């Protein structure tokens, strides 16, 4: 593996191996001294054209716990505002000899474009409305741990509902691809205005009846509704959105006892998810955050440690 651009590029074996290593990294995380020497002498750059404290710090910790040198470059408002092309920004970093560039950008496909320009390994930390592969991997990791803890086996054959603004979500695209590879069933729940065009070709169920979906799921994954979408006329009001698609206390009661609640964050409490749901014992939202570091350690390890041998 040279780059991590899209879940679509990963074989089932690669997914299994990434998740297995993440399991080992998870143990490191719970040690008092969280340091492995695996990537000593390696340098990774967090190149974020779009702000994200959560993803950026997760990658930064992952790199540091593997003993890599990590720097953060916020490209927003720097060279870009001086008219530098995205390609020039990447070539400049690449010329410094870094081993991996972890990139987030508002433009779909931008990380794949970058991979064609640089020598470093590229890791997609979210490209526009396209993909967020480490988010999907960490979701799978956190869900799997939950299922194992309840003695319910793997994701194979499980039913995952993903609800929210699917049109603008990179998380849903990566998750649909990954959950399919892992043998899970996916139900997408969103109003027609927030469904991606061509979703009927994705090989998943699509529903507008959240109440009917909930009693049957093993995982209720909620996605953030961006309030700025309101003015675009995607839905009439927050009230109406919550009525149709919010994980309200009433809907919480429709979930089977074993089912867990996931959300990639940051949450809009009281909009797509009620506090009752976010803070419920069955919520794995904070487990997703810790899984994030383990999964990113695994990804960095697979991309960078292998090259030495």
């Amino acid at each position, binding site marked *: 593996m040279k780059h991590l651009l899209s879940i679509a590029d990963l074989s089932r074996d690669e997914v299994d191996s990434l998740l297995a290593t993440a399991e080992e990294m998870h143990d490191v995380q719970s040690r008092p001294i969280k340091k492995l020497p695996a990537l000593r002498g390696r340098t990774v750059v967090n190149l974020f054209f779009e702000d994200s404290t959560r993803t950026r710090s997760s990658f930064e910790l992952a790199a540091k716990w593997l003993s890599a040198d990590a720097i953060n470059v916020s490209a927003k408002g720097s060279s870009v505002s001086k008219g530098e*092309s*995205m390609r020039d920004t990447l070539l400049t970093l690449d010329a410094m000899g870094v081993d991996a560039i972890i990139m987030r950008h508002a433009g779909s496909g931008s990380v794949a474009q970058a991979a064609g320009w640089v020598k470093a390994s590229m890791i997609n930390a979210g490209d526009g409305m396209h993909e967020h592969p480490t988010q999907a991997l960490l979701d799978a990791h956190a869900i799997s741990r939950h299922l194992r803890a309840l003695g319910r086996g793997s994701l194979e054959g499980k039913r995952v509902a993903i609800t929210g603004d699917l049109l603008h979500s990179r998380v849903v695209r990566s998750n649909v691809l990954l959950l399919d590879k892992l043998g899970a069933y996916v139900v997408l729940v969103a109003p027609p205005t927030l469904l*991606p*065009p061509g979703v009927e070709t994705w090989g998943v169920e699509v529903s507008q009846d959240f109440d009917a979906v909930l009693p049957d799921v093993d995982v209720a994954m909620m996605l953030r509704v961006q309030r700025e979408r309101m003015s675009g006329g995607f839905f009439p009001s927050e009230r109406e959105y919550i009525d149709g698609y919010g994980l309200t206390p009433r809907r919480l009661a429709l979930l089977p006892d074993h089912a867990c609640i996931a959300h990639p964050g940051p949450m809009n409490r009281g909009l797509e998810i009620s506090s009752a749901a976010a803070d419920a014992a069955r919520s794995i939202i904070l487990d997703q955050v810790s899984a994030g570091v383990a999964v990113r350690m695994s990804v960095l390890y697979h991309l960078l440690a292998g090259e030495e041998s």
Partner: protein
Amino acid sequence: MTATVLRAVTLPDGSRTDLKLSDGLIVDDVPAGAEVIDCDGLIALPGLVDVHVHLREPGREDTETVATGVQAAARGGFTAVCAMANTQPVTDTAEKAEHIHDLGLDARDADVAVIGAISKGLRGEELAELGLMHRSRAGVTMFSDDGHCLMNAQLMRRALEWVKPFGGVVAQHSQDSNLAGPGACCHEGELSGRLGLGGWPPVAEAAIIARDAMLAEATGSRLHVCHISTAEGVDVVRWAKARGIQITAEATPHHLLLGTEELVGYDTVYKVNPPLRTSEHIEAVRAALADGTIDVVATDHAPHATQDKDHAFVDARPGMLGLEQALSVVIETMVKTGRLDWSGVADRMSHAPARIARLSGHGQPLAVGSPGNVTLVDPERTAVVDREASRSLSRNNPYHGRDLPDPVEATFLRGRQTFRR
């Protein structure tokens, strides 16, 4: 004045003749010492005319100038091009139109007709001085805010009314900017959903064409639809023509050949507005060009510097080169497939565009007394397109590396050779 004899050349109707060029005209007899070109197997087309090119001067002379643009035009077999108004500054006054007109006179390799903006600064708020541009030395007859759709229906109506007395034509970039808003850079459908690119739905084109057709009917004025790209848009034009509305439409070479699947690798050379469409739309556009619903091929030649393309797909400038391979693509998609014969090519790429833009010195049949505007074509020749061989200052050529017809042997503008292989 040099004289040339195109010996035994084949005309679009299939007949063979010696075509004699002298004193800028097609003549009965040339003076002694005329150059004789053996044209066995070659076809003579009336010099090609392009009603839609971006020459970037003034403002972005690093990407194209009027001089380099007409060199590329001559290489592609064109003898006249119409320069779009979205320069910097925008061509929205008589003085600015005359400036570009004069640059065209200096450049000489093709005639340059100036397209004036419909609205001041292309802002879509107030009419530009349409009549003054028409009465200037530039003699502007075509007006367009291309690059932007004129969304204000009342202003569109006024523009149509205003140009009617002098026979002007309003050329619309048909894109409802609410339906295909900011970030819309990919045909809306399965692929835009998968790639996560903003969708540009066909109805955003058809809805504006339908609105404008009704305005053209209400005003009795002439409407031209730029770069039509959808089956729905074609249907509206077909309906409007049947109703007797004065509407014409153009198709670009890239919408005849290239499809959405080119976007899979996010290569920004394929970013164009309107976007590349799926095969059913390509098929509809080809069929409409064949049956005359679409009147002309126009390139939308849009040179860009690499630094303006080296961005994320959504941020990169839209547009691709088109002048040098336009005839190549028309042969590949329309002639080789039996949809157009050579008379049809002459009509869609010379007679009809000259008629729409009211260019009296162009688009004439190749007969004695006509201007010596001739494109000499080898219908059998092919070559791999090399973007480095371009005469344009820019390199955003979507056909780079493709094996395509490479037909243009020579181009004559009023008897003078402007390109020779």
